C-alpha cells in the first residue's frame, strides 16, 4: 500500500473546526455533517477540515493529544518501555503531518510537536525491527500487535512478509516429499 493511501484513510478521522460561515446540514453519502454556524465548533472529517482551512473558511481545533506536553509524556513512556505503548491516535503520524502542513497557525508549538512525533515514530520503528528479528529468529507462528498503527505496519510490510514467506519455503525443505498443498 502506498503511504498516501494510508493518509487517505487517516483523512476520515474527525476533527473539530470553528467555521466562519453558516450552512445547514450536508447530507453526505457517508453520513450527515453540520449545521455550520460562525464561531461554533463542529465535527468534520479531516479531508473537509483541510479543504475549508485552505479556503480560509475555518480554524482547526487540534486533537487533544496534539499537545507538546502530552506528547512529551508519551515519548518518555515509549522510550521507557520495551513493548509498544498505546498511541494517542491510530493515525498519529498522518494526522500530525496533515495538520501541521496545512494548519500550523492553528496549532501551538507546532515545531516541537513535529519533533516529538518524529521521536516517538523513530522509537517505535526501532522496536518494530527488534520484534521482527525476534519473530524470525524464533520462527514464531503468531504475534499480537495491538498498538501498531497502519502506517507503521505499512513501512515494513513488504519486507517482513516477503521474508517470512521465503523462510517458510526454506523450512518446507526440511520435510522432503511433503509437498505444499495449496
Amino acid at each position, binding site marked *: *500500500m502506498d503511504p498516501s*493511501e494510508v493518509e*487517505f*484513510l487517516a*483523512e476520515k478521522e474527525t476533527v473539530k473546526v470553528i467555521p466562519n*460561515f453558516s*450552512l*445547514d*446540514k*450536508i*447530507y*453526505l*453519502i*457517508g*453520513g*450527515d*455533517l453540520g449545521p455550520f454556524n460562525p464561531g461554533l465548533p463542529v465535527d468534520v472529517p479531516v*479531508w*473537509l477540515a483541510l*479543504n475549508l482551512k485552505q479556503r480560509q*473558511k475555518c480554524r482547526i481545533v487540534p486533537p487533544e493529544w496534539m499537545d507538546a506536553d502530552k506528547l512529551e509524556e508519551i515519548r518518555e513512556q515509549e522510550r521507557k518501555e520495551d513493548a509498544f505503548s498505546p498511541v494517542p491516535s491510530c493515525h498519529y503520524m498522518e494526522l500530525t503531518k496533515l495538520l501541521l502542513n496545512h494548519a500550523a497557525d492553528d496549532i501551538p508549538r507546532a515545531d516541537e510537536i513535529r519533533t516529538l512525533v518524529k521521536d516517538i515514530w523513530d522509537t517505535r520503528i526501532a522496536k518494530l525491527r527488534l520484534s521482527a528479528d525476534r*519473530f524470525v529468529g524464533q*520462527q*514464531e*507462528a*503468531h*504475534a*499480537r*500487535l*495491538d498498538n*501498531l498503527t*497502519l502506517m507503521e*505496519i505499512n513501512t515494513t*510490510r513488504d519486507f*517482513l*512478509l516477503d521474508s*517470512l*514467506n521465503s523462510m*517458510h519455503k526454506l*523450512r518446507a525443505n*526440511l520435510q522432503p516429499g511433503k509437498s*505444499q498443498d*495449496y
Partner: protein
Amino acid sequence: RTMADALSDAGDLSGGEGSQDDVMTPAELIARLEEAWLNEKFSPELLESKSELVECVMEQLTHMEENLQRVRKGDLKASVHHMEIGRIRYVLSSYLRSRLQKIEKFFPHVLEKEKSRADGDPSFLSPEEFAFAKEYLANTEVYLKAVALRHMPPNLQSIDMLKAIPEPCLDSFVFLRVKERQEKILVEPETDEQREYVVDLEEGSQHLMRYRTIAPLVANGAVQLI
C-alpha cells in the same frame, strides 16, 4: 428547488436494493466497500467478488451526481459533495483494480476455481471479471505461441499454464484486526520442536499470522486485513 431539497433525500436511500441482506444505510455501504478494498489489497488470493456492493455504491454515486447537476457551480455544499464522490470513486476503482491485478497474476488458477465451482455456489468473479480472465488467458497463449512456442520442437509447443503460473500462497503471513471475537483459533507450529496451540482473537486486537488459518474469518467478515 433548493440545494437542501435536492440533497436531503440522499440520506435515507436504502442501500441494499435487490439484496436479501437487511437494509444497509449508505454510510454502512461505504464502510463495507472500504473493508472489501483493504481485504482485497492484502489477501494473497482473490476474494469473492462483491458485485452487488459495487452496484449499490455505483447507484449511490449516480443518484448523487444527478442531484448535483441541478446545483449551480461554486456552491459550497456541492463542492463538499463532489469531494466525497471523488473519495468514494477512488476506493471503488482501487478495489476493482486490485482484483484485476490478481486476476492477471493468477489467471489460470482463477479460471480453474471458477470451472470447478459447484452449481448454485456464488462465483468468485463478476461477469466482467470472468470475461477479462478468459481473454487474458487467450491473449497470453496467443502471444507465447507467436513469439516463442511455434519455434520450438513440436513436443515442446504446449505449455500448461496451471503449472507455469505460481498459485497464490495461502501460507503467506497477513496483518489483521479482529472485528468479532473468536475463540480457540489453532496456530500450527512452524518447527518440529514447537507444538500447536490455540489463541483467542479478542475484538479490536491485531495479529500477524498465516492467511490460511484465518481465511474463513476474512470471508465472513469477522476479521479485517490491515
